[in-house]
């Protein structure tokens, strides 16, 4: 067990907790990107370059982007709550 792996594993736990414990979605996206980056580094250290590459493209770029897009459209969403006659739960 080398020191690099130990540090990266601890950082994974730390950034992962950061994602789970960040309450605001917008900040969480940043935490997710950071977590993705640390995971990619960890995978490099675990001798898995293919997986690291995927994690980098998906976890650090594509997914946070989708989250941002969704958050933007939720913020913009002003469509009337015609719903199905149920309306919002909170008045």
């Amino acid at each position, binding site marked *: *067990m080398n020191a690099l792996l*130990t540090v990266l*594993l*601890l950082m*994974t*736990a730390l950034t*992962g*907790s950061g*994602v*789970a*414990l*960040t*309450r*605001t*979605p917008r900040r*969480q*996206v940043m*935490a*997710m990107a950071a*977590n993705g980056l640390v*995971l990619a580094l*960890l*995978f490099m250290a*675990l*001798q*898995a*370059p*293919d*997986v690291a590459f*995927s*994690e980098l493209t*998906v*976890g650090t770029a*594509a*997914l946070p982007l*989708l*989250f941002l897009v*969704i*958050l933007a*459209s*939720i913020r913009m*969403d002003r*469509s009337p*709550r015609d*719903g*199905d006659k*149920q309306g*919002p*739960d*909170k008045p």
Partner: protein
Amino acid sequence: MNRFTELLPWIVAAWLLAVGLYGMITSRHYVQLIGCLSVVQASTYVLLLAVGYRRHAGPPIFYTHPPGTPAVDPVVQALVLTDIVIGATVTALLLALALQMHKRRGMLDPQELRPLSR
């Protein structure tokens, strides 16, 4: 201390699972909950790759090293690749569902949303 580092990958995997579930249980926003799901998934990555790890071995790619040099397990890496695709697709699907839900109900608090109202 040495014993601790030996166990560290399993502890980290279990911790990610637990903290991800904790985040989901206490979440007040569905998009945040979906983010926590990715933490749960990260625990499977760590577990699988740690299982396939081998000390003093290179990546399972014999481009610069000749075949036969010690390398880590390629099978778990293939499994994790599939896992990443699964995670990404399910996350995207969940985000789409959450967005539509917001359009219907105007809020996304998992502690308020019930599929069927009384």
